[in-house]
Structures are given as C-alpha cells and as structure tokens.
C-alpha cells in the first residue's frame, strides 16, 4: 500500500515515515506536487510545531488539492497539528484558517495549576464504532505533546482528560486525525496506524 505524506516544512517527518515503512507502507513525500495528492491512495499530514506553519499548505495549493482528494474519498490522517488543521482554525494563529472540515476551533488548555504543554502518556475513552481505533482497549495509553486541543463533539472518536476533556482522535468517514502521536505510542500506536492503512469505506461495517 502507498501513502502520500505531506511535508509543510514544520518539524521533522522522519519518525512518521520510518513508522509507516515499518508497517510495510510505501511512502511518497510531497511539499507541493498537487498531482501526487490527486493520485494519492492515502494521505498523512504529520505536524509538530506552530499552527501558523500550516499557511504553507495554502501557499502551495495543497489545501485545495487535499480538499478535493478528501471529497472523492481518499483516506486522510492528520497527526497533532495535522489533526488540528482539519478544524476551522486554532487560537494559536487566529489569522490562519484550517481546512474547516470540522466546524470547531482549537483552543489553548484552560488556565490551571497543571503543566502545559500536556506531555506524556495518557489514556483514551474510545467511541465504540471507531474504525481508526478498533482493537484499542480501555487502559491503553498513547503519547501526547501539545498545548492546544480540539473540543469534544459528535465527530470525536476518542477523548482524553487533561485539565478538561478534549478530542484525542477525530473520525468522520475517510477523514481521521489524532492529537496524540501514533508513531510514538508503542504497540498501541502501531495498531492505530495499521487500522488507518487498512481503512476502506466497507471494512468493519
């Protein structure tokens, strides 16, 4: 299977690429070749760093190409900032719109005595019909590192509690995202990425 990994020059791609290859996926990286997105079998949008960095997706035309690919059913996985980008935007960079596939806006964790960023292994409360998180059992942990988060909505596939409940994974048909880093989440993460690589509209129905 082939995965097109989108590079928007924020942080490093090495971990994600290495993990996808470990799962026997062939990886193609693009930072602006729209044809590669149009032809993609599956897309992964990694992301660490600042939400403002996603402006590069607009400048290169990747935003439109990804929107079109999603519309025709190409499976898409956004990781961390890549997941947040699926929303209308983030208060981290209010001037920079997201894809708007999900209508809500990502916000900073509420003021509290807890440390921010939320760094470390935390547990998931998984929605039963999630295909992305199929086989992930209560009490399994995944690795987070972030200061901004998406609210819990009907599209939330898993929620996590830190200071407040937030969306750890979002899933609506072929559009999926994880706030945590599946590529850094041990066996649980590998299981989730495998689910994404096997995802099809029919599977699991």
């Amino acid at each position, binding site marked *: 299977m082939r995965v097109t990994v989108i590079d928007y020059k*924020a*942080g*490093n791609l*090495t*971990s994600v690429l*290495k*993990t996808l290859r*470990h799962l026997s996926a062939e990886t193609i990286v693009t930072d602006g070749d729209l044809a590669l997105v149009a032809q993609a079998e599956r897309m992964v949008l990694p992301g*660490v*760093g*600042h939400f403002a960095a996603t402006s590069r997706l607009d400048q290169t035309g990747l935003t439109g190409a990804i929107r079109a690919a999603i519309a025709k059913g190409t499976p898409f996985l956004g990781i961390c900032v890549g997941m947040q980008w699926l929303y209308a935007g983030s208060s981290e960079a209010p001037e920079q719109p997201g894809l708007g596939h999900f209508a809500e806006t990502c916000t900073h964790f509420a003021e509290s005595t807890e*440390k*921010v*960023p*939320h*760094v*470390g*292994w*935390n*547990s998931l409360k998984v929605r039963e019909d999630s295909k992305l998180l199929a086989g992930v059992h209560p*009490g399994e*942990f995944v*690795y987070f*590192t*972030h200061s901004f988060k998406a609210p819990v909505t009907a599209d939330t596939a898993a929620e996590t*509690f*830190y200071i407040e409940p937030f969306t750890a994974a979002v899933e609506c048909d072929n559009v999926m995202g994880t706030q945590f*880093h599946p*590529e*850094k*989440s*041990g*066996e649980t*993460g*590998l299981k989730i990425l495998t689910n994404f690589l096997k995802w099809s509209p029919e599977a699991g129905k």
Partner: protein
Amino acid sequence: MITKRIIACLDVHAGRVVKGVQFVDLVDAGDPATQAVRHAREGADEIVLLDITATHEGRQTLLDTVRRTAEGLFVPFCVGGGIRTAQDAEQVFDAGADKVSVNSAALKHPTLIDDIGRSFGAQAVVVAIDARRDPKAADPVRDAEVFVQGGRKPTGRRVVEWAREAEQRGAGEILLTSMDSDGTRAGFDCELTAAVSEAVGIPVIASGGAGTVDHFVDVFGRGKADAALAASIFHFGISSARSLKEELARAGVSVRLPC
C-alpha cells in the same frame, strides 16, 4: 489520566553504551540500538541517548548510532550531547530523534533554544541543567549553581532563574540533574526538583541519585517531578522499567501499565 514517565537513559561513547561513575571507569554495556529497543519493550516510556564524550570527530558515529537506534523504536526518543547549533539539531532530527537535549551550548548561546524551538517546535527542545546546591547562597536550593561540560565548569547561573529563562525562550521540558545526588544511588534531590518544577510551567524530568523504587515514589510526590530518568538501575539486568512501574503503581503512582 496523565502518567508519570520513566525514561531510560543510555550514556553513549563512541557508539557504545557505557556505564561509569563521574565519567571514569567506563564499562561497556552494549549496543545502543539493542539496548533502546529492549528498554522500550520492557516498559520504558521514553529513551534518552546522551553522547557523553561528544567530540567533533565523533559526530558521524553519533548520527549513525541515532539512525540505527531510531529504526526500531516507537516511543519518544531524545538525543543529547554536543548539540551546539540548530544545524546540529537538524541532523539529529533527520536521523530519527524526536527531541534534542541541549546543555552547555544553550548556556553559552541561549538563543540556541529559541532557534531550535522556532524550527522544530518547543516539544522538540529539552534543556538539560546540571546543578549543585550552593551552601553560600541565600537559598542554597533555588540558587543552586548551574555547571556545564559534564559538571566540570561552574557558570555562576542559578538553577531556578536559568530554568525560567529556558522556558521563556521556548524549551518544552527541563531535564534536571542534581550533581549532589548523581552517582550516589541515595535518592533524587527532591527539594531541588520541586523548586524547579514549581518555578516553571513545563514538565521537569528528574535525574541523579536513583537507587530504589522509593526514590522514584519520592521524586514524583515530594519532588513534583513529571518524569524521572533511570540509568544505572536498568543496567546489567538489575531491574526493568516494567517492574519499576509495577511497584510504583502499588505505591499509588499513576504510570503507564500494562506496557
């Protein structure tokens, strides 16, 4: 619920894991890639690889080691030792590290923290601080002195003040080593750890002095640490992260289990 992290630390010299006290009597403790994967399999939440004798000539060896180690590792992986510029950091990231730890170079040129954070995100920058209590200071703990070059050279900087600056410049975590406790196996310096952890809003990783499970219970409680580094207690099969975490769980510490 967020869990307390147990981080396995591999000290590396010329491509091999070594163990010694105060950088002397180094004993070969195996291949870094093999050791890292073993620790991850045995429940470590994260792996830190420190090039303890970082030299310019050794850079390529380190990058090869990082590449080989990252290959089979699917937990967070931090690399430190000899990272002097954002370009050095980039090479280490390209080789497969998720975070870099900076120490001496950040004290010499604090903007290094800003530079790496800007390019790779705060989550990728760990500022390592080696501190020793200063009995002459008004507050020997909060004003513990920061040392560089493997603890050989005093800087005149104070631990709390430097940790705060590091945070402001965009560090994602602080790796705090107590030079008073390091190598003693008599317990972490919980007062020092708590002083730093309370002074900053970012996670603090405690290091130096681990000898027993109770020491970890203490540093997560009294020491207010978010994570703790374990090095020597894992070597030569003495213990594993999993058994350590099982005992921590029995003591009421929230840890990632099963793992």
